């Protein structure tokens, strides 16, 4: 029973993790409503655009997901087919709906879905608030939604950090369609280290401190664990032997190994020096018991 529960739990966790790496990680990242100077589509036309960001490191696929600006879909009384009628379904059957980890996908809200996968059947309204939602392929699970305030021409509503940051208005010069919202300018880590720590002393002190701390904590933990187990082992050793029945087989001679022990030692030495190995259970024992070796010797003895 315990095994069944454990297995179920593990399967559940595994499938949950699998789902989390899929479309669930698609997030709205940047939206531009009035496009007069921003990016053009493959037809050379300018229209509102909506950018997704795949927030996971694994790839995701947006096929069959739904985009909508119709708040009526929030009504939980609606059935899935009713809901789907109010939304734009991202077509399946194209490799273009595949988004690599941490990458972006751009849709043009131009009410011209026949122009291709990335052209929705709705548009965004200028100079007013727009609500946009992304639903999973079942049409009922809301993956992400955003309310875009009234924006000026070529301004976008974008997250400060891809996929997770606060939303803010971005000026026309700084919109980043299908690209990261953070354009890092300035020196990188290496350049900073070169400038601030040209001799490497800071790096040395920091790194040694981290390495020492990690291993010192490990020392401390295993010193404690060791004390616990060392006392357990010693108490087991010190425990008086139970007064059991006499041993079934007395040693052959006092202080000497009996024949079986001698045979075992000889075999071990023979294997060691002769570099002879075969497939064994890895247990060398002098205790009696049934084994193929014993069976063989018995057969020979009987013959």
């Amino acid at each position, binding site marked *: 029973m315990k095994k069944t529960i454990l297995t179920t739990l593990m399967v559940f966790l595994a499938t949950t993790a699998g789902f989390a790496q899929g479309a669930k990680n698609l997030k709205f990242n940047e939206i531009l409503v009035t496009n007069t100077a921003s990016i053009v589509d493959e037809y050379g036309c300018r229209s509102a655009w909506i950018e997704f960001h795949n927030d996971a490191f694994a790839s995701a696929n947006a096929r069959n997901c739904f985009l909508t600006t119709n708040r009526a879909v929030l009504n939980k009384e609606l059935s899935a087919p009713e809901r789907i009628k109010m939304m734009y379904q991202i077509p399946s059957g194209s490799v273009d709906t595949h988004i690599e980890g941490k990458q972006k996908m751009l849709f043009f809200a131009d009410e011209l879905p026949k122009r291709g996968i990335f052209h929705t059947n709705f548009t965004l309204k200028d100079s007013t608030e727009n609500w946009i939602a992304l639903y999973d392929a079942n049409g009922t699970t809301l993956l992400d939604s955003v309310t875009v305030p009234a924006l000026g021409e070529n301004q976008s509503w974008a997250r400060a950090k891809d996929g997770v940051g606060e939303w803010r208005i971005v000026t026309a010069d700084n919109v980043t369609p299908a690209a990261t919202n953070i354009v890092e300018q300035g020196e990188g880590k290496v350049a900073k280290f070169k400038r601030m720590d040209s001799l490497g002393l800071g790096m040395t002190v920091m790194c040694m401190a981290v390495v020492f701390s990690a*291993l010192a904590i490990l020392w401390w933990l295993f010193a404690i664990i060791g004390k616990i187990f060392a006392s*357990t082992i010693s108490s087991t050793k010190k425990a008086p032997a139970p007064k059991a029945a006499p041993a079934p087989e007395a040693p052959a001679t006092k202080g000497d190994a009996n024949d079986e022990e001698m045979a075992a030692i000889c075999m071990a030495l023979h294997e060691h020096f002769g570099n002879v190995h075969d497939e064994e259970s890895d247990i060398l024992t002098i205790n009696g018991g049934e084994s193929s070796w014993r069976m063989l010797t018995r057969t020979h003895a009987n013959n």
Partner: protein
Amino acid sequence: MNDFFNFIGNNLVDFWQYTGFANATVGHIVMIAVGCLFITLAIKKGWEPLLLVPIGFGIILGNIPFKADAGLEIGLYEEGSVLNILYQGVKTGWYPPLIFLGIGAMTDFAPLIANPKMMLVGAAAQFGIFAAYIIALLLGFEPDQAAGIAIIGGADGPTAIFLSSKLAPNLMGAIAVCAYSYMALVPVIQRPIMRLLTTKKERLIRMEAPRQVSQTEKIIFPIVGLLLTAFIVPSGLPLLGMLFFGNLLNVSGVTGRLAEAAKGPLINCITILLGLTVGASTQASEFLTPSTLKILLVGITAFVIATASGVLFVKFMNLFLPKGKKINPLIGNAGVSAVPMAARISHDEGQKADPTNYLLMNAMGPNVAGVIGSACAAGVLLGFLI
């Protein structure tokens, strides 16, 4: 008839253009000689033959001259060539963690668990890495390149390849060859330093045999070890994760077949591929540069400092340890992670001072701590610089 001979002659000239003889340069010859030297050292002297033979042969393989613009797709750096495909394991850094899996499965952490204060010796020896970082900076390398070179001081080939593939890919061939060469030379480099830094009296110190370690402790170690080190240095996860996973396979008692695979066929296959492709990556045009000479210089300095740091740190610890519990400083050198060679050197040196003193098991403690320490150090450098 004349046309026929002209045709044959032109073809022979063309063929000649494709041969190694027509394309050979002094650099190629020098590198082939270096490859032969590696193989000779491995076979004649027995210095790290499992590494130096594949690397040496790889050096020869990578320096066979051919017409580069012929589109033969045979060069290591040519997209789609067989060597290029094999090289991806080095370039993208997945060979080293697999090597660590095997090392974890082969390594017995019991001496370290029995005497966990040896962790500190393993940590102290990592100073060689950071001293080398300073020296590399002084020699004019960029911080990321300096870190890739400095990791040679950890005396850990896979870690050196892993880190340099991330931080200094253009220097990786030289760093890998340097790391493995010095690992092969550990007995030559370490012994004089150990003797120089210890007194006769110190070399005679006897240590208690490590206590018996229970199976439960052995199982707890890789799990706690991973959790702790990876939480502190997550960037070292590929190496630390595989190291501790390999060890868990070995000690769990129920995954014998997996442990056998990890420490046998798997590590052997990866060692062959790693050695061969690392060797082949040392093409003359990339390898015979002033940078390589500097790397060789920094590398040996790193080894010397790492060894000295380990030995001196043990002497420092002895100042605080009661009489009878003192540590023989000869095991300090084992804080570098050349397992088990460094521990064997401690033992040999101990036996030279006193033939009845057995230091091997005591030296294995800092030695395996060094493996953990160098992986942590690589993770820290990666975390700071990438």
